[in-house]
């Protein structure tokens, strides 16, 4: 057993999985800049948060308020997940069959935990849309939702502080890409989100 698990650990341990960032909907929807880290076809794509952190994957918990099946040949599901600061647009298509089946099964409204990858789209009218391609979605309880609000608030405040220090390359990039956004607005957003939690 020990040598066996040692070997599998080595194989999986040699690769670093991209962490799932905690970000409120109110910040994620401000993303306008997305980039690839590396030239390779398989290099990961990152969305740059206005508070100066790159994210390839996010973890969010909120209320699934609507879901909709779309497409004929290529069936996919869209959904709206609401947190205290706004709405996440999530989608799962036939390339994520497991996630799609999970989403199809959930009755709205429900608290859901979503792990997924943010994608930035520009609509024909020129406006931007950030949608989250779901890797997995499960029904959770209110306690988990509240824990997530604490977690997302803490991480947001951490980012705002790192952004004020202003030395990390991604922070400098964020200041270039989002010259009109003052990260202080996300502090207020975090406070309001925390204040909405009722015992």
């Amino acid at each position, binding site marked *: 057993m020990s040598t066996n698990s040692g070997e599998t650990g080595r194989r999986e341990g040699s690769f*670093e999985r991209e962490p799932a960032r905690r970000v409120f909907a109110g910040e994620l929807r401000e993303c306008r800049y997305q980039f690839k880290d590396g030239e390779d076809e398989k290099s990961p794509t990152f969305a740059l948060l206005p508070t100066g952190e790159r994210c390839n994957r996010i973890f969010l918990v909120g209320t699934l308020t609507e879901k909709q099946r779309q497409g004929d040949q290529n069936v996919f599901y869209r959904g709206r997940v609401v947190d205290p600061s706004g709405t996440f647009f999530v989608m799962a298509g036939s390339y994520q069959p497991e996630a799609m089946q999970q989403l199809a099964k959930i009755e709205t409204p429900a608290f859901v935990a979503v792990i997924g990858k943010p994608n930035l789209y520009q609509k024909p009218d020129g406006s931007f849309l950030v949608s989250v391609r779901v890797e997995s979605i499960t029904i959770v309880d209110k306690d988990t939702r509240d824990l997530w609000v604490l977690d997302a608030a803490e991480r947001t405040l951490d980012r705002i502080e790192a952004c004020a220090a202003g030395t990390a390359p991604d922070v400098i990039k964020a200041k270039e890409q989002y010259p009109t956004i003052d990260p202080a607005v996300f502090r207020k957003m975090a406070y309001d989100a925390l204040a909405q939690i009722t015992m």
Partner: protein
Amino acid sequence: MLTLYSQDKTGFKLEMYDMDFSEAADRISRKFSKSGQTPDPQKIESKLRRLVQEFGVQPSEAERSVTNELAKEFNIPLPGSGGAAKSGGGTEEKKIAEAVSGEWVTIVGKIVSLSPPASPAIAQSGIIADESGAIRFVAWAKANAPAMTEGTWYRIESAVVDEYKDVPNLKIHSGTTIKELGEDRALIPNPDPIKGLHPGIGSVRAKVVQEWDASHERMLQSGLLGDETGTVKFVIWKEQGKEKLAVGAVYNIFYAQVDEFNGRLSLNLNPATILQEEGDIPVSGGETMFRGALVHIAPGSGIIKRCPVEGCNRALSRQNYCPVHEIQPKFIYDLRIKGWLDDGEKTHSILLQRDAVEVLTGINLDAAKEIAENNPLGMDEVFLQMRDKVLGRYITCHGREIDNRLLVNKCERSSFESGEHARLLNRAGGAS
């Protein structure tokens, strides 16, 4: 340096000299380029050649005098360039721990270990130590350095620190002066905590917690060493006079070689001095705690079948096939969850063992068996039910970290704490 290795042993002496000169010239010009000067290496080479070939000067002496001449020309004081009359004068000593790759150094240390040279181009290799630390050294055959003895103190002037396989290495070349010191001070290294080891040389006080099957015929023993701070893999290669360590015993291991491979450290004990110690020490076994959200559950989680052969316990395939013992119809059921725990900064690979799975999912082994045997989806149904109960939840896991994976023996769901809520409200509402 690489050309050296490709050079055939039967290479002409003249060729060897040629290489020597350009190498020495490079060394000298590098020394000055750090101070912003750009001496011409060809000029240096011809000066060296003239001194050695026409005037019969020792190569090391030639190097020294050319260096000196240039230093005067550029008006730069140079450590380690005292000249023939007062050799060593004005040379600044450095602690071994302070030696940085790419530097010229003069150190005073004790030879704590000698190892058989890996190539005919090498006269001697081993480990030299002082109170601050230890470093591997290599003396090139053509450096004509005096042979050093284990257990003796030396002053080594003008050696070069470089990196070999990402580990700092002290090179003794033809420009290096070695002096034996009469003194003999006792040198007992402070053990490093296993968690604090880094590639190079390290000393630990640790217990042998596991012994593994040798994966190579030249390997005498491999396994896992542990102290209060963590665990590390060790290996002993077959060599005259080497003995296996006893599992469960505690050892003081002085001057082992710390290698890094695929981001994981491993201790090579062949150069080390090993002293067994009476008694026992607590071993954390990498006892750690991670908190975060469970963001992925891997296939192979849920209820699994294990090989019943004593000491095997491997997970069987769906067809009850064990990679070693083939088909095993009398398998044993077990529960486990393999997944990723993510705190937003880093994702940890985790493996929940049966007890932890039962607590977290509320499904015990009997209930899982029942589901697996009476459901059209079989074992998959257990996976799905467990996934829906734990995926996306905040949990705290305790266990031992081995090979970058946390083996979880205890875990619990995190619960909402109003104190934490109040703290964050204050933090967010504070100075904006």
